[in-house]
């Protein structure tokens, strides 16, 4: 048996036993894998349900419902596509959790003579253990949460527990994809560190991002609006190309996001307020990272903005009333799951930073810097990027939704409620996640390691 296989579990067990530092991060990684598995299985279960209802003859009561069945599968697939990136992102993030600490630890193993291949294998084994434990816990939560879905109905029929249960091969595919992604993230993360040991801690003046990013996105938005104006969305080709173009525009937010982070943070770097200064400098230090932390919320903000104008009714006795109702429910579920993902990602990032920045925090504490400064910095590091993300994506979603050209008969209560709910919950959950790191920060400062005095 190789050294990596025998050593990795021992190291992991000892760390968790210590319940400090890296042990907490290991638990956090398992939590992230648990949440991502649970949500991935839920989304896959929903799609599987619609697929079965479409496939099984007589599953739906009316011919009209049967006619729309394939649309439900397509919409569920679309929701899957919307959530798959944040879900995979959370899994990948968990694999990179505590990068600095892990690198220090692995460097010690290199020093005692382990090869880089063995070190990478140890990390991959650790990740596999964490992700498999997370997948099992996530599967258990998925199963136990199934009865709650019975409270909802789609296609005028309550959701049945059996409908959401995945066949074993599909379960295996979903979990397998998450585990493989986590392994890939670990290997890529370590390779980056091997190439540049300073890559983890940016100690050098960062390069400014250029304005062309904004110009490209603005040009894309204008081009899309013009394109949608002259395209027949009713035709299949028109619909496909418009959706494709829309996806490109949505993706382009990631181009302008880091530039906006930098723009908004810059005034903070010229302040006398220490918490504001540190938060601004940290965002300026890595605007791409700051954006990455809130990118999934930006995505949700875009969806919430886009669906504000969706029809809330087709008339009391309209034949498609159930369809409109189902779309609203589907959007609400997608946003809720996305918010859970985003909050978990924030918790993970902030917790990781508490440990990665432990030496500096301890030094500041010894210099007499109040512990409240750390919390104030963390709050700003959460709120400022979030405000930028939602401030960009919600208006963009609203502007692009005009291509749907829905004639509203009344104030879009449902759409506005979903938007307001997403924004408020987005802020509350993210702030809650930042607040939840307080005990970790206190723990880092409280631990007076007995040095070799």
């Amino acid at each position: 048996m190789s050294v990596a296989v025998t050593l990795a579990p021992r190291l992991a067990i000892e760390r968790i036993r210590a319940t400090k530092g890296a042990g907490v991060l290991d638990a956090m990684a398992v939590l992230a894998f648990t949440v991502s598995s649970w949500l991935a299985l839920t989304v896959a279960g929903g799609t599987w349900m619609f697929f079965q209802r479409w496939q099984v003859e007589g599953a739906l009561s009316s011919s009209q419902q049967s006619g729309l069945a394939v649309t439900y599968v397509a919409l569920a697939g679309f929701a899957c596509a919307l959530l798959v990136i944040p879900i995979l992102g959370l899994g990948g993030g968990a694999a990179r959790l505590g990068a600095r600490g892990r690198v220090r630890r692995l460097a010690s193993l290199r020093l005692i003579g382990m090869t880089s291949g063995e070190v990478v294998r140890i990390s991959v084994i650790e990740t596999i253990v964490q992700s498999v434990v997370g997948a099992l816990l996530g599967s258990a939560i998925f199963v136990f949460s199934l009865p709650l879905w019975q409270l909802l109905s789609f296609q005028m029929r309550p959701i049945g527990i059996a409908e959401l249960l995945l066949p074993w091969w599909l379960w295996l595919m979903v979990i397998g994809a998450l585990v493989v992604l986590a392994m890939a993230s670990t290997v890529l993360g370590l390779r980056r560190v091997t190439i540049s040991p300073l890559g983890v801690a940016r100690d050098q003046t960062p390069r400014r991002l250029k304005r062309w990013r904004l110009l490209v996105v603005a040009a894309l938005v204008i081009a899309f609006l013009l394109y949608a104006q002259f395209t027949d969305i009713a035709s299949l080709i028109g619909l496909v190309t418009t959706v494709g173009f829309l996806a490109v525009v949505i993706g382009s937010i990631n181009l302008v996001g880091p530039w906006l982070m930098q723009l908004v943070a810059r005034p903070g770097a010229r302040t006398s307020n220490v918490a504001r200064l540190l938060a601004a400098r940290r965002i300026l230090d890595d605007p791409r990272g700051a954006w990455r932390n809130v990118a999934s919320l930006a995505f949700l903000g875009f969806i919430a903005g886009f669906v504000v104008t969706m029809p809330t009714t087709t008339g009391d006795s309209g034949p498609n009333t159930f369809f409109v109702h189902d779309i609203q429910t589907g959007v609400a579920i997608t946003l809720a799951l996305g918010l859970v993902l985003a909050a978990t990602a924030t918790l993970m990032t902030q917790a990781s930073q508490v440990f990665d920045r432990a030496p500096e925090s301890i030094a500041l504490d010894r210099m007499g810097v109040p512990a409240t400064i750390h919390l104030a910095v963390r709050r700003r590091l959460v709120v400022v990027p979030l405000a930028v993300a939602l401030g960009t994506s919600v208006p963009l979603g609203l502007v692009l939704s005009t291509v749907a050209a829905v004639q509203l008969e009344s104030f879009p209560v449902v759409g506005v409620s979903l938007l307001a709910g997403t924004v408020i919950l987005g802020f509350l959950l993210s702030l809650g996640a930042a607040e939840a790191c307080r005990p970790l920060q206190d723990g880092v400062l409280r631990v007076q390691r007995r040095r070799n005095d």
Partner: protein
Amino acid sequence: MAPAFPPWSTRNMITPSLPRKTLAAHNLSKSYGPVRALADVTFDIPSGQAVAIMGPSGSGKSTLLHCLSGILVPDAGEVSLGGESVSGLKDKHRSLLRRRRFGFVFQDGQLLPELPARENVALPLLLTGIPRNRALKTADEWLGKLGLAGMENRRPGELSGGQAQRIAIARALIHEPEVVFADEPTGALDQATGHEVMQILTATTASSGASLVVVTHDDEVARWCQRLIEIRDAMVHDDQLISRSTR
């Protein structure tokens, strides 16, 4: 007569017109579970004196520094500054004391990596509410004094170990502390750079009138100080003045 401090000096906020004070340890004891780190340690450090605390690994010298600076509270005994208890203060007040009346130099600088040099140095002033422009002006003056003019906007990753440690010294002294604590300040440096850093550290603390407490295991480093306290098995084993010729 009390020294005159510039109008922005944090000393004015805390101890207006008070002279610098003696730091005293009385019968300090501290244990970590069954391990005794300090046992009945007593000595005074008069204002302006540079003291080296030496001892083998595990002797208790870092614990002593942490107790003297109010980072740790001793299990028994008392630390006082000018007769006022330090160890008896609440955690919040000890933090305030450290921020305003003490300065710290750590082994590897512990500068904030995302801040440029001048903001790292200005940090103690910003924390006490000094306006940014004034704080940065003072920081630039300190950087100039320590031979770092032109490096104000460099970040820690763009500086050598010696330069980073000089920035840490400027940060420790910018708010005109009464005592500067240095924990193995040359531990991460080569011998020549270490000498250079000690020369700057002792000269700048002496010129600002602050006391200096250096924890080290290096004889060469200790020779830069005026007095040597040797700790062995948690107790003061030796306490002697270092003659100028030895230095």
